[in-house]
């Protein structure tokens, strides 16, 4: 220390103080909803991943999520270009097909924007598209979209359409009975009592149900439908 000239120390201290002063007055970075770029092609992202597609997918997920971390969540969502958001989510799923984070974001985050039902519908259709690519793992998000369609969008035919997709494609031991049977109860709510009776009776007669509690519940439900009694509104 003694060997360092005083002028050098003074210049170092002055330069440091100037730098800290400039940095202190710099406005903090803020993610602007309008700044979301057009997603590049999946092939380009695969090259840019340098052999780590899953790592890049996770970084992109957190980066995309950063556009939402502002006070007043609904305002930034409304400003987002939803086709671009869906494009980014699609690229992320292309890099990491086993990851469920993007589909959750689509159904639970971007699909929940208030005051913009067209955006909620857009994201619900995106969830349906992705569900059909991997129904065994992505059924929870479509089930949520069906519930959202019924209760928030108040579009029962749309909810029935999603529930029908769950019935037709969601298979495997991990898919619970209520998800596969949702279409029956939604049809009952839609006033399609005869269709609901036929579907429920067919399900009970098929022998695919093994849980005694589930069989008992559905049998009681079928009895309530014959003749039709007012629904208790306990559709999931």
């Amino acid at each position, binding site marked *: 220390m003694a060997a360092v000239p005083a002028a050098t120390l003074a210049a170092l201290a002055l330069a440091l103080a100037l730098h800290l002063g400039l940095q202190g007055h710099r406005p903090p970075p803020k993610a602007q909803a309008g700044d979301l770029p057009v997603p590049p092609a999946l*092939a380009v992202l*695969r*090259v840019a*991943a*340098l*052999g*780590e597609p*899953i*790592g*890049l*997918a*996770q*970084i992109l*997920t*957190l980066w995309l*999520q950063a556009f939402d971390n502002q006070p007043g969540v609904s305002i930034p969502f409304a400003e987002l270009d939803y086709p671009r958001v869906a494009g980014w989510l699609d690229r992320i799923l292309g890099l*990491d097909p*086993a*990851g*469920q*984070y993007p589909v*959750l*974001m689509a159904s639970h*985050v971007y699909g929940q924007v208030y005051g913009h039902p067209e955006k909620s519908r857009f994201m619900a259709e995106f969830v349906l598209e992705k569900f059909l690519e991997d129904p065994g793992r992505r059924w929870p998000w479509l089930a949520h979209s069906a519930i959202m369609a019924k209760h928030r969008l108040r579009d029962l035919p749309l909810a029935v359409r999603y529930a029908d997709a769950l019935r037709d494609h969601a298979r495997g031991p991990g898919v619970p009975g209520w998800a596969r049977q949702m279409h029956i109860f939604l049809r009952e709510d839609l006033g399609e009592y005869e269709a609901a009776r036929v579907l429920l009776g067919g399900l009970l007669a098929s022998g695919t149900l093994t849980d005694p509690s589930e069989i008992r519940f559905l049998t009681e439900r079928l009895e309530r439908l014959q003749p039709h009694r007012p629904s208790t509104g306990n559709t999931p």
Partner: protein
Amino acid sequence: MSSAVERIRVVASFAWIEALRTRLPWIVLAMALSLFGAALFARSLAITEAARIQAGLLAAGVRLAAVFVVCMHVLASMLRENQDKVTELLLAADITRGQYLCGKLLGYGAVALATSAVLALPLAAVAPASAWCPWALSLGLESLLVAAAALFCVITFSQLMLAAAFVLSFYVLSRTMAAVVLIAGSALLDDGSWAHRAAVVAVRAVELALPDLDRFTRTAWLLGEGAPWAELPGIAAQSVVYVLLLFSAACFDLYRRNQ
């Protein structure tokens, strides 16, 4: 024969001792802790699949860090030795160039394996042992391959920037070659011109010359996908063959330059 083995062992031990004395273990340990902290921070940002995010980002970071550390250590060590005339002193002694390079490769290989083992340790806390073990082994083989490439480059170029640029470019190209080949062969890009066909042939030729690092050390193994143990023998075989190729090329260049 035993004296040749002894000479190789001495050169290898010099390389190992140098790594210890240049505080490389502390640097590697600090990097491992920093990467673990960064992955932990990323985990806190996630609203779902937090453990998956942590493991994925940590794995990607560890892999890049291991390659970077091994590459720079080998290059810096060899260049310092060359500038201090230690290389000339060693080669003036009763040791052949082949024995010298073999000792260096073994020493740096041990450093690469130890570096990858330390850097891979944090992942043991976030991934099951059945997935972590083959992943760590593959990382060790990948680091060994990079050490051999760095040794070849520093013998050939004798300049830090040039050698580092070549090694890192070689590594990046090897890891992205699979994606590049797919793009080059895409029907959408095929306009039937001779230029496109020549480009495809060139890409294929480059692919043949490079190791298939795309198959090494996959993050998907840590996340429960793929069959890492089944792929490990193929990866090990490729590593051995390519290290031998790089070692032979380095020997050829060292003998040719009569250094």
